[in-house]
């Protein structure tokens, strides 16, 4: 297997190519033999082998991109399989790029598939991106998206950008023939978006798949030189309404910090500094730093298990959102989402009734710390709240330390 990302094919179409690609070679007004040769001679880098990457990688492999590279540091988890259809149940635990390469080799053994089992960072982005003809952003967090954009601008590569969350997706081509870049469109990371991840917010399986397929189409158009690449528009897809909105983008922005005439980001070092504020959870790495709380306000899962087993009366407040609470919860838990705690102090006071200690729990032990602190702040005003403590590590820790049969999600 040739793992050089440079083009792997020379000369005319061979019989095996004509046979394999005949249905796309025959498209009326399509790209024909010349277009197929361009595909076979091209190199494409796909960043991320997740929900979007799954379909874009398969279709790019199927259509005969000569040299396909896939970068992903993450391993396949069973919760990925409802949408990351390139991976199979047997692949759980395997690196995603490795699993993707196996699928590609099964689908089209005539091409070269190179994989990188590392995260894309400011240190490797420029070298990787500059050695490919076209870049597909199938990543899952804002910081990586800015790093990819900046490296594409600095190396003059077209960027096919796709994203999906919940029931929606977006698609656009950036930095194409003098067109606007991702920063022209989104100059700074959205305050709300930065805190979101698929593992917390969910995603409808086919939505990223569809976005990935559309990215494959745009990639084929860029490589074969077909007109009307989606560079001047942003496509917004709403799956529940089945609506496709095509928003006309602004031209390249003169104040853009990376592609404007007075750019301040002229190297990946400057990109690193500028993208620090864009940190957000990767879909697969939604583990934020534990929040601070004093030891006297915390108990461990095993300690709380003892309280349950001893039969001591208490209140268990589960401060996750309703969607998560409906998935699974501990018997007897009362669902009061974090955002509602301040309004529900009276209620908490009533049920605690001066006698029952209150324990707060959530998924990983972050929201419950905030809830505990909020309740502590109100203790003077609501003296009937007996006491409050946070259960460290939340239900994730409960699963690993107390009850292995509790669902993992």
């Amino acid at each position: 297997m040739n793992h050089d990302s440079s083009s792997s094919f020379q000369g005319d179409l061979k019989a095996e190519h004509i046979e394999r690609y005949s249905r796309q070679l025959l498209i009326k007004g399509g790209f024909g033999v010349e277009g197929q040769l361009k595909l076979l001679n091209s190199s494409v880098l796909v960043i991320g082998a997740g929900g979007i990457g799954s379909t874009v990688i398969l279709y790019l492999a199927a259509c005969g991109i000569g040299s396909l590279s896939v970068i992903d540091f993450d391993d396949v988890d069973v919760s990925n399989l409802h949408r990351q259809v390139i991976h199979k149940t047997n692949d759980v635990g395997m690196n995603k790029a490795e699993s993707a390469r196996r699928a590609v080799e099964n689908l089209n053994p005539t091409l070269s598939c190179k994989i990188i089992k590392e995260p894309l960072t400011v240190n490797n982005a420029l070298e990787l991106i500059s050695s490919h003809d076209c870049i597909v952003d199938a990543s899952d967090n804002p910081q990586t998206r800015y790093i990819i954009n900046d490296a594409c601008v600095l190396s003059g590569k077209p960027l096919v950008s796709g994203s999906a969350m919940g029931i929606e997706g977006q698609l656009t081509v950036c930095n194409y023939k003098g067109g606007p870049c991702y920063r022209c469109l989104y100059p700074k990371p959205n305050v709300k978006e930065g805190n979101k991840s698929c593992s917390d917010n969910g995603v409808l399986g086919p939505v990223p798949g569809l976005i990935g397929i559309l990215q494959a189409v745009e990639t084929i158009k860029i490589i074969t030189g077909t007109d009307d690449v989606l560079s001047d528009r942003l496509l917004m897809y709403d799956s529940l309404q089945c609506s496709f909105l095509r928003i006309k983008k602004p031209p390249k922005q003169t104040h853009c910090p990376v592609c404007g005439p007075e750019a301040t980001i002229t190297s990946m070092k400057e990109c690193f500094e500028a993208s620090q504020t864009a940190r957000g959870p990767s879909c697969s790495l939604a583990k934020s730093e534990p929040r601070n709380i004093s030891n006297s306000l915390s108990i461990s899962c095993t300690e709380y298990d003892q309280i349950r087993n001893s039969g001591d009366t208490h209140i268990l407040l589960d401060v996750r959102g309703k969607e998560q609470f409906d998935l699974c919860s501990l018997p007897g838990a009362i669902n009061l989402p974090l955002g509602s705690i301040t309004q529900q102090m009276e209620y908490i006071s009533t049920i605690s009734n001066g006698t029952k200690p209150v324990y707060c729990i959530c998924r990983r032990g972050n929201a419950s710390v905030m809830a505990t602190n909020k309740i502590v702040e109100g203790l003077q005003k609501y003296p009937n709240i007996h006491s409050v403590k946070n259960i460290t590590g939340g239900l994730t820790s409960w699963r690993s330390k107390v009850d292995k049969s509790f669902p993992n999600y």
Partner: protein
Amino acid sequence: MISIQVLFFASAREAAGDISKKCIELTPDEANTSSLRRLLALEYPGLASMVKDEENLTLALNEEYVTRGQVLALKDGDTIALIPPISGG
């Protein structure tokens, strides 16, 4: 009064309380994109931090981006879309 349609996408939809579209009435004085941002911030407090900041939430008027720094007049029947980025994949 003029009436415009506002479309909420992605995190803007969530911040406004899972509303995907809303018809909003504006007085002639308020019939511009800048006043609309202020009104949306008042109507949907969860959306305020986003909608007040042009760099955080882009507007599209009748399927065309409103360039930053630009204040556009709104007329009866216009559609405004609130477009935050989506980052998941």
